[in-house]
């Protein structure tokens, strides 16, 4: 159990920075997810935490101990690798026992811990097998078992369920979350899958191009993204963006598009704070913050033409052609519009966002 502090950490590969001035504090016992696309520096960060990669600049602290110069074996962390990294010439039992053997634990302790972990992960019947006789999901559990037997200070999970099929992945998400709650050990979980991060983590660190974009709880990240990049990366189906003009009209501020003119809510006018009074901005709205109808609900509604309908089981996703751009709307499967027909969209203004047209930071 440890609080992990990453202080002004940089990672260079030759001249190329992979991680730029990263600052993260993971509270003791929390489940932190580092989220980002490939090449964003999340794996480098994890490897620096594990001691597999040299820290170019900055400090990493476990509680108050600076661990920059400690060898991996002295850091007391356990890591689960993307490809499981099981030892093929050892049985499942020996794989799980390996960290204990390397620490010269007694045979009784090893037996107790391994059987305990196997029971927790429901792999007791596999202990005598070798890794090549296991399915992906089973290998995954063995890898986790190897991590938990040692009762380390910190768990590092590097995209551990990325190679499982969709159904098993959904199942393992719940299991890993439950496991972390049961053990109460700080866990850092690297993933490129925003759904995994949102559904499992207590806190998410969103990274892009080596920089931390946003730190927050899943709800904060989802509901209040700090910039257009985070807004676009988190959430499935992805947020719609429309480039609009901002126009003052009396006391109101309007977002004007060739297709519509919608006033901001009074609180949002304050948040805009005159910054972009008379310029362009990007409006962002998630598909579920829009509603679609075949008749004009009010004056402010946008008018467009249905491009395609996608039925997603419990929901329907409708893509609407709005002048020269397309936006996606989530609705119920009962929606009866057909492609080519005219339709009207209205926005839930509590849930829309306006981003700066230049650097993309969010006004609200």
């Amino acid at each position, binding site marked *: 159990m440890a609080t992990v502090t990453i202080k002004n950490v940089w990672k260079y590969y030759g001249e190329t920075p992979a991680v730029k001035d990263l600052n993260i504090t993971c509270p003791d016992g929390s489940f932190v997810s580092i989220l980002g696309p490939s090449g964003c520096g999340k794996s480098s960060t994890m490897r620096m935490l594990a001691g597999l990669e040299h820290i170019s600049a900055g400090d990493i602290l476990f509680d108050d101990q600076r661990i920059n110069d400690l060898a*991996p074996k002295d850091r007391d962390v356990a*890591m689960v690798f993307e490809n499981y990294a099981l030892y093929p010439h050892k049985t499942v039992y020996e794989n799980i026992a*390996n960290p204990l053997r390397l620490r010269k634990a007694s045979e009784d302790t090893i037996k107790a811990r391994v059987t305990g972990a196997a029971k927790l992960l429901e792999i007791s019947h596999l202990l005598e097998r070798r890794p090549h006789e296991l399915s992906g999901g089973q290998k995954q559990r063995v890898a986790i078992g190897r991590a938990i037997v040692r009762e380390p200070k910190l768990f590092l999970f590097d995209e551990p369920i990325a190679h499982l099929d969709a159904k098993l992945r959904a199942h393992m998400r719940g299991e890993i979350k439950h496991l972390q709650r049961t053990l109460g050990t700080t866990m850092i979980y690297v993933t490129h899958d925003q759904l995994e991060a949102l559904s499992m983590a207590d806190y998410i660190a969103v990274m892009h191009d080596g920089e931390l974009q946003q730190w927050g709880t899943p709800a904060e990240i989802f509901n209040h993204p700090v910039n257009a990049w985070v807004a676009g990366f988190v959430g499935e189906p992805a947020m719609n963006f429309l480039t609009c003009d901002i126009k003052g009209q009396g006391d109101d501020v309007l977002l004007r598009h060739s297709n519509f003119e919608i006033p901001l809510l009074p609180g949002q006018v304050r948040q805009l704070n005159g910054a972009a009074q008379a310029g362009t901005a990007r409006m962002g709205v998630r598909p579920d913050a829009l509603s679609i109808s075949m008749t004009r609900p009010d004056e402010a509604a946008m008018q467009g033409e249905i491009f395609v309908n996608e039925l997603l089981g419990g929901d329907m996703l409708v893509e609407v052609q709005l002048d020269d751009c397309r936006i996606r709307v989530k609705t119920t499967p009962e929606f009866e519009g057909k492609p080519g027909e005219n339709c009207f969209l209205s926005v839930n203004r509590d849930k829309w966002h306006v981003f700066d047209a230049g650097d993309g930071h969010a006004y609200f």
Partner: protein
Amino acid sequence: MTDVSPISANPRAVAAQIFRARAHSAEVEARPQSEITNRPRSFNPPMPKRYYYYLMAPAIAILAFISLYPFFWLIVMSLQDVDIGGGEWVGFKNYVKLFSDGRFLDGWWLLAQYSVMCLGLQVGLGVLLAVVVNSSKYEKYLVTALLMPMMMAPAVAGLLWLFLYNGTFGWYHWILQSVGILDNASILASANTAMYAIVLVDVWQWTPLITIIALAGLKRVPRDQLEANMVDGASPLRNFFAITMPNLYPVLLIAVLLRFMDNFRFIDSVLVLTGGGPGSATKILPVYLFEVAFKFFKLGRGAAIALTLLIVTIILGKLLVRVFEKPQNEKG
């Protein structure tokens, strides 16, 4: 997911089918094993079996001429007392006599010593060098430099070392004498040191082969396993023996097999350096065989020695494969 349809004659269709199967690997995994192995075997239309034999016939004919025919005559010769004019059947007398031939038995003992020393040093040094080279940023240059001894004809290497060992102007002789290890006796002329001298030449020339092969093996060692073991708490040395070595076994098997068979056959440098002497100190079995067959022209006895050498080589080779294959099999 589509079922695997019967083998199509159209390669494109087959390729597309394989591609589709890969794209849906999750489903592929879920299907029963029998369907997965039922992959298209070949794009060629089936061929009557006799054509295979027609196609192989030239190769077999050449092989028979250069290899099988002499082998057959070797067996015949080993059962005869051969003279220039022809042979006279003597049954197994050649073989029986070998067991009372002191130099034949000594030859085996010396060959065993020579072989074990060569292999031990070469594998140890070779793997060590491979690890050093692998972690060096000058890898390419080191590999080039290491390859040089191997490029040399063994007889030339023998000649080179003959000069280095020379009692009058040899550099090694001088150095060993300077540090007081050697008295006035020449390295090659002393029964105590001659064996080590010929081992050193073999090690010098052939360690690079083991290095190159081990280097190729090192490249295949899965990095994530090494890292996992490190995080689990292993020291670098422990990591090497727990992860790297088991992954090296299969390639080392090939290297050791090659070298051990070479040691049983290649005597170029030994002939140049000592010719089996002083006395019989370095008369390893193949050297003795050479003497019997081509110096004393006892071709019948020579053939008998050669056959025993062959049989022992085969048996040892099989044993080696079995010993080395074990960890590999466990890997599955």
